[in-house]
């Protein structure tokens, strides 16, 4: 199957100044050689802890940021080589839903204006047609025509997320990037929004890049899951396979850290030592080795590469 999105060796370094005046310059290696592909209609989950580069990856794919190196292909179009006009067309096909239901909606615009913004920008509808289309979009996400004249602060977190989804769907995208879309929501509302994502995918044939730190949510919604650590993908597999047979010690620790809602099963927890190192001072060799319970000889000097160890199961670890 032809993949809809191909990401090749994507890198983004943010320069930072150390020291106040003429201090040496350093790079924050937010994304450091990320590659993956997403098939049409597929959901790829991207998990990792804060600062691992998953949100930066999302913004690079959408070209909200320019990369330091690497390529992104949407269908046959190379995203970073697209000119203004091509980019404008591409923007209709790739959309994003953000994490924060408060800062992701302009507080000074009505729901109708927020959702209709894409229609206006791409001259897709105006006047009554626009109103009808906005109403239709709102109904699609479980809201109604009566909400059009209201302002964001009149809505709850879950409803705001629905408005954000409607805004993204207005331009008829093929790829929807969801950047932690449910992490700010209450448990009972999370389930509603996850169900909405799944319903929309079925109805509209959408392709998802679903980013979250909650492995439970990612596993539920994704066909395949990629695990990121310090700017790199350390493991990528089908979601059931990843859960059943996690290979990378980091994935194993992440999975074991998920609390189980059964007081009687005492799970075997792997508690990692220390904190994730800063992306300014990336450890030599395998980036995970300072925290890895299974590290051995080559880990602190030689960086492992992402290899396919069984069909469809990729891991970047010297153990395999």
């Amino acid at each position: 199957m032809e993949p809809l999105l191909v990401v090749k060796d994507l890198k983004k370094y943010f320069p930072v100044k150390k020291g106040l005046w003429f201090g040496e310059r350093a790079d924050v290696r937010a994304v450091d050689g990320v590659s993956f592909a997403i098939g049409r209609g597929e959901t790829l989950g991207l998990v990792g802890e804060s600062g691992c580069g998953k949100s930066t990856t999302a913004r690079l794919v959408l070209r909200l940021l320019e990369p330091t190196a690497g390529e992104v292909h949407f269908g046959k179009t190379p995203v970073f080589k697209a000119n203004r006009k091509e980019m404008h067309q591409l923007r209709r096909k790739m959309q994003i839903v953000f994490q924060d239901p408060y800062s992701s909606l302009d507080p000074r615009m009505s729901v109708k204006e927020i959702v209709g913004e894409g229609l206006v920008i791409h001259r897709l509808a105006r006047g009554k047609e626009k109103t009808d289309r906005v109403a239709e979009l709102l109904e699609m996400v479980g809201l109604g025509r009566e909400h059009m004249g209201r302002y964001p602060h009149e809505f709850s977190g879950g409803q705001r997320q629905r408005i954000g989804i409607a805004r993204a769907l207005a331009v008829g995208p093929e790829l929807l990037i969801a950047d932690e879309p449910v992490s700010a929501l209450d448990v009972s509302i999370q389930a509603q929004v996850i169900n909405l994502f799944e319903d929309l995918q079925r109805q509209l044939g959408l392709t998802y890049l679903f980013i979250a730190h909650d492995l439970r949510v990612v596993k539920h919604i994704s066909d395949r899951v990629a695990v990121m650590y310090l700017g790199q993908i350390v493991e990528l597999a089908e979601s059931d396979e990843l859960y059943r047979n996690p290979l990378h010690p980091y994935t194993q620790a992440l999975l074991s850290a998920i609390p189980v809602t059964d007081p009687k099963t005492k799970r075997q927890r792997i508690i990692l030592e220390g904190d994730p190192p800063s992306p300014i001072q990336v450890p030599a060799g395998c980036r995970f080795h300072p925290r890895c319970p299974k590290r051995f000889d080559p880990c602190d000097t030689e960086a492992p590469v992402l290899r396919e160890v069984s069909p469809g199961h990729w891991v970047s670890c010297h153990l395999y």
Partner: protein
Amino acid sequence: MRNGSLLTIQDLQTHFFTGEGVVRAVDGVTLSVRPGETLGLVGESGCGKTVTALSILRLIPNPPGRIVGGTICFEGRDLLRLPEEEMRSIRGCAISMIFQEPMTSLNPVFTVGEQVAEGIRHHQKVSRREAWDRAVEVLRRVKIPDPARRAYEYPHQLSGGLRQRVMIAMALALGPRLLIADEPTTALDVTIQAQIVDLLMGLQEEMQMAVILITHDLGVIAETADRVVVMYAGRVVEEASAEQLFETPLHPYTQGLLESLPKLETGKRHRRLTAIPGLIPNLLDLPTGCKFAPRCPKVIGDCWPTEPELREIRPGHWARCILA
């Protein structure tokens, strides 16, 4: 009513008087904590779990908030009737609290050692030197690596996980009998969460203190709590031992919460989640009967006219539902 308890809250009512009306954030909460046990307090935003905790310490911002009724008995004394000075000597000493966001709870211009030592000197007459030594000792206890050196660092030099450890150190410095932990892991990464939960549970055993653990994460509750209180719209809707609650939840809200969590077991992908319909309730506009009725999948006609009482359905298992 329940003997041998360390803390007993009876019919607590904490209301907020706002321009739009009276928000009954906590409306008739009754619960108790026994010495040395972990009580999990679960619920979604606005259910009143944090306000309950702040009421225990009498830290409700006034105005707009006020504790308008009820009693909070701690070791035989009603905290709501104590003069402010006595309350101050209890706060941070016999009862202490840790908060969700460790960065905003620490003072950025003092070293962490100074902040822990300050807390000790606030309650006990000890020399500066002695307070500092004890602060380093407490930092060691919360497993901060190289505490003698770390004590000289400022909050911004520490990672989120270490900051939360400092917060715990400050709370535990004086050996409290009750620790209130309000979403202590929510702002942290998954792997750090596991570290902190582990640390808290280890310290509790070591120090024989009672813990009220406030969280929205049912998983954390299942792993740590002895008993669980589920709150909804300012009320207790269910109370049971952790085993009972997770095995046979009686209130439809608890059942809904448990079912709305994605399951990790393999082979169930793309099974729709059972979500609780509707919105988090607006405390200014609650129904007269059962507060959960508008979202309840099992609602019947009798749910609407009067609010059900919290009844003991089975020994030690209480629920506020006429169907239970």
